[in-house]
């Protein structure tokens, strides 16, 4: 497949106190429509990525909000945990490929700062198994267990991994949409308080508010939007693994990413070595390390080395760490950020990888500039 993306839009992620769900939907949707120079009546349907509006804002039917604010009919809500945005892209692509739609919008919104930190932490436990959250586990504690095993198996120290969030921060300095646009030195990360040993506070991406959108169209009508095309979606794959760490074959590999990557490279007919840029799910340093190994860029145990040698290719937006993780919009933000940097640097192929929870689901999308 080769699905043209004719519009992209972002709002700056962060503490958006003044904006509610309706405001974000309106802002991000109108920005995308303007970007494509098309009207809402031209959009055949919209896939909406949002996880917690029903709990946080007491509103579960965001398709109705989208209709109210943007006038777009046929809204479908997509829930796939932290990877909802990436899943919404996949669904939108399917609606185009099937011939059902000519123009589809993908829109992600989330208002996590309407809750307190511990409440958000508890909600994120929806993305791990009930048996784990029952005993007091969180997404972060489970990543900590994975980190401990990884550094034990490969003879590393926890401080060896802090270059990852540090370099992601550096990348975000020039990103006007990133939540945090300052340097974060490794020493500062290593001195920050322990969150769940051995992971420290400054290792982790923060939850925030955000919105992101893109519009795709069928290849048949692409000529109409030739000047608007931001890039193409070549392939999208999703795979699953057990929710609980106790049922996985390994806790130093995320099988859902392994499976999704195999499928997506096969589908797009390109190889890992062809990838010029990537936006990798870096909620914690370990998730970025395992991703580059599981996608096939590096052998098991060599993830940190690969990342060090390829800092100029990974998470140039700043990743979740510096942009913030807004759950619903994140997978879409990764795509938007990737496409803009492929264009600016005139590079060919890019890849986004988005997890849900600790890897119960992984979505890998491959894009091209032309």
């Amino acid at each position, binding site marked *: 497949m080769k699905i043209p993306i004719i519009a992209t839009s972002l709002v700056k992620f962060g503490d958006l106190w003044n904006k509610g769900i309706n405001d974000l939907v309106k802002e991000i949707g109108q920005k995308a429509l303007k970007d494509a120079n098309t009207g809402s009546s031209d959009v055949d349907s919209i896939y909406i990525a949002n996880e917690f509006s029903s709990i946080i804002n007491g509103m579960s039917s965001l398709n109705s909000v989208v209709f109210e604010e943007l006038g777009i009919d046929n809204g479908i809500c997509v829930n796939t945990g932290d990877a909802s945005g990436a899943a919404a892209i996949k669904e939108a692509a399917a609606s185009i490929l099937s011939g059902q739609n000519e123009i589809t919008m993908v829109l992600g919104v989330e208002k996590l700062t309407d809750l307190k930190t511990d409440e958000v932490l508890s909600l994120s*436990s929806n993305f791990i198994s009930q048996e*784990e959250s029952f*005993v*007091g*586990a969180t997404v972060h504690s489970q990543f900590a*267990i994975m980190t401990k095993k990884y550094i034990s198996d490969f003879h590393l120290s926890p401080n060896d991994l802090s270059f990852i969030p540090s370099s992601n921060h550096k990348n975000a300095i020039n990103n006007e949409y990133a939540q945090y646009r300052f340097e974060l030195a490794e020493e500062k990360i290593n001195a920050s308080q322990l969150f769940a040993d051995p992971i420290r506070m400054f290792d982790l991406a923060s939850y925030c508010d955000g919105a992101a959108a893109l519009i795709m169209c069928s290849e048949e009508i692409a000529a109409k939007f030739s000047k608007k095309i931001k890039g193409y979606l070549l392939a999208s794959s999703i795979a699953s693994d057990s929710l609980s760490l106790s049922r996985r074959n390994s806790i130093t590999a995320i099988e859902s990413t392994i499976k999704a990557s195999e499928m997506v490279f096969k589908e797009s007919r390109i190889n890992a070595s062809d990838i010029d840029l990537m936006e990798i799910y870096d909620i914690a340093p370990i998730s970025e390390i395992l991703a580059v190994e599981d996608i096939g860029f590096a052998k098991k145990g060599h993830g940190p080395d690969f990342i060090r040698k390829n800092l100029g290719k990974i998470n140039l937006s700043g990743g979740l760490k510096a942009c913030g993780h807004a759950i619903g919009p994140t997978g879409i933000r990764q795509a938007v950020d990737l496409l803009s940097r492929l264009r600016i640097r005139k590079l060919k192929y890019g890849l986004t990888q988005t997890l849900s929870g600790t890897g119960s689901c992984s979505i890998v999308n491959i894009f091209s500039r032309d």
Partner: protein
Amino acid sequence: MHKTSSPLSWRNSRNHYKLAGNIDLKGIIESFTIVRNAPKGFERQTPYVLALILLSNGMKVVSQIVDSDKIEIGMKVEPCIRRIYVDGNSGLINYGTKFRVTK
């Protein structure tokens, strides 16, 4: 953990009691963490140890480790029954299996 419902709590306890009441069951710690930022309901328990444990029956389980300060990967453990989560002042007391280090 949100408010526990009776049916949910009852179903959960089946599995936990099987582990806690098994005097022959043993385990080995595969990996662990020390949770210092807890989800709702667990705040007063921090710091607590969460571990991935390989059981002698071949299964694995994620559980808290109690009564020990020094935890290392590879330590042997055995199950015990403990309070997991108390649902406020009027809700249920949820019991479950935790593990402690054996000599």
